[in-house]
């Protein structure tokens, strides 16, 4: 679909098996990330966001998780076909990941410096121990922590500071792609602003592409050029930031915007999406959103929903758009 994309995920399907139930976490997701681009992946709890990120690095625990199908191309090579040994060279080096919860993402028994130096010495084998240490200190300074704190342990850092350490660790080997899984969800707004600003600055400096996973539309609006909305393991709408924020098309995307209290516009009453996210072990047939959708018709209850390109680059997976597309033409 997209030839020049640097990271290309095609038709990824992931399942979990638990208590004899099959949980359909990711159902045929395709995503494309270009050099230096920031792509926001937006969705609610349990939509499959984190699973996608972990699939890219192939660090999903198996069992219970199993990648059922799909391809993940990194610069023309399919990561799914690589041997575990080759993946070691990619993890932390070409693709790095920032995790949601800085409180638990660091080993409590090693100093933060050691943990940063570790990733450096794994991937830059020509460096001596001292050089790796020196580089780790530079990384600390880069994320705004004084180098003296190299010898301190994670418990001596606040949440925001820990997240900086995690970011330093992720960027230490100058990766081409950064997978940021809710990097600021655990942080307060003022700290969130600091951390986001820092990530963006470093990203621009190194030309890193970023997949930013979040549930916060505000964060997406401020950070991403392109956006994909995920619902029940499917990408239901994608396009540029302007496409999504100015012309949200899928009923779910519109519902998300209507659910948010606005700072600028006075609304007396919010209009939430009715119902709950579907049970991933028992997904509805047809469009996964139809039981909650106010536009749902008979057509939506069965069969595959077409993925329509409503305007160039703006895709929406909804029957409603089929008509729209024809009108447009």
């Amino acid at each position, binding site marked *: 679909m997209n030839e020049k994309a640097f990271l290309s995920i095609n038709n990824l399907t992931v399942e979990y098996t*638990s208590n004899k*139930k099959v949980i359909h976490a990711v159902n045929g997701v395709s995503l494309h990330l270009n050099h230096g681009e920031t792509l926001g992946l937006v969705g609610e*709890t*349990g939509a499959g966001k984190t699973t996608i990120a972990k699939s890219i690095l192939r660090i999903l625990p198996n069992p219970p998780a199993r990648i059922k199908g799909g391809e993940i191309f990194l610069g023309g090579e399919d990561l799914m076909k690589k041997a575990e040994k080759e993946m070691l060279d990619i993890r932390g080096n070409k693709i790095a990941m920032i995790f*949601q*919860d800085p409180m638990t993402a660091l080993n409590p028994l090693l100093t933060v410096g050691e943990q940063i130096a570790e990733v450096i010495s794994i991937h830059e084998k020509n460096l001596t121990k001292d050089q790796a240490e020196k580089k780790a200190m530079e990384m600390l300074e880069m994320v705004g922590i004084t180098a003296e704190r190299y010898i301190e342990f994670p418990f001596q850092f606040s949440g925001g500071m820990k997240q900086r350490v995690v970011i330093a660790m992720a960027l230490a080997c100058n990766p081409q792609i950064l997978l940021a899984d809710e990097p600021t969800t655990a942080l307060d707004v003022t700290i969130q602003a600091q951390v986001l600003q820092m990530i963006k600055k470093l990203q621009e400096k190194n030309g890193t592409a970023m997949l930013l996973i979040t549930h916060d539309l505000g964060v997406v609006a401020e950070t991403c050029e392109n956006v994909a909305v995920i619902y029940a393991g499917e990408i239901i709408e994608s396009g540029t930031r302007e496409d999504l924020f100015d012309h949200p098309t899928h009923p779910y995307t519109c519902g998300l915007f209507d659910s948010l209290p606005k700072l600028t516009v006075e609304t007396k009453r919010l209009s939430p999406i009715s119902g709950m996210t579907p*049970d*991933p072990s028992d997904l509805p047939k047809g469009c996964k959103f139809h039981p909650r959708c106010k536009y749902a018709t008979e057509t939506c209850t069965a069969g595959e929903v077409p993925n329509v390109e409503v305007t160039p680059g703006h895709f929406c997976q909804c029957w409603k758009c089929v008509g729209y597309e024809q009108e447009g033409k």
Partner: protein
Amino acid sequence: MRKFRKAANNSYMAAMNSGHERSQSLFSQVAGRLKENRGAMAGLIIIILILIASFLGPLFCTYGYNEMNMSQRFMAPCLKHLFGTDGYGRDIFVRILYGGRYSLLLGLSGALVSLLLGIVLGLVDGYIGGAFDTVFMRIMDIWSAIPGTLLSIIISTVLGSGFGNTIIALAIGSVPLTVRLLRGQILSVRKEEYLEAAASINASATRIMFKHILPNVISPVIVSTTMNVGAIITAAAALSYLGLGIQPPNPEWGAMLSAGKTYATIYPWLVLFPGCAIAIIVLCVNLFGDGLRDAIDPKMKN
């Protein structure tokens, strides 16, 4: 806040979304999971069989447990005497059957007494807290500084033999463990907001203790009590073996071992059968306890 986002992420919550018509209480869920654990069920069934056999078995046997027959001393296992006879010509099979009562009753009641003592002490401690807690934990530290078996030996020496005294001796040795476990549980539950919620709707302190705290801390204590049954059976046998606790001629398995050890080389069945009996019963208790733990806390398993 972060934590439960993650908790929800494991798709367990989502799977529950569709809503159940019928809800299972935690108890029936645990029972359900326990039934699927073959080891635990095997353990439980064997324990029940031993219990039944030890109480009903001797009624159907041709020999009494203390019936001596000097003409049939040290007989090897044969059809007449399944496990052979001892130095007084007593049938070992009957004695082992009968001795099951001691082991099981000592194990169960010892663990139960220690559980009750532990709960009373633990709840009082968790309830009062503050300075009392500090002093209390120091006492518990001293209590547990003396190894449990050692304490049981000493208490048993002081109290003398007999069933009741032995139970007390055994229970005292294992109380600190229960108290510590319970206290740790109470401390972790104390942070939960449903306790604040209970206080805000004017629930009395006793109500909070018994309706909100106790039911939520009891499962690991029950598991450890189950494991304790096994440990206490072994300790009881060890006491008898050392000449404390239940004394001969009562057919307690440890006492039988102690009496048989002199002839063990020539007549190995004297110690083989009582020893196997102890090992089997403790194994069954542990199997059941393991299963119970997995059933109560299914997260631990996968």
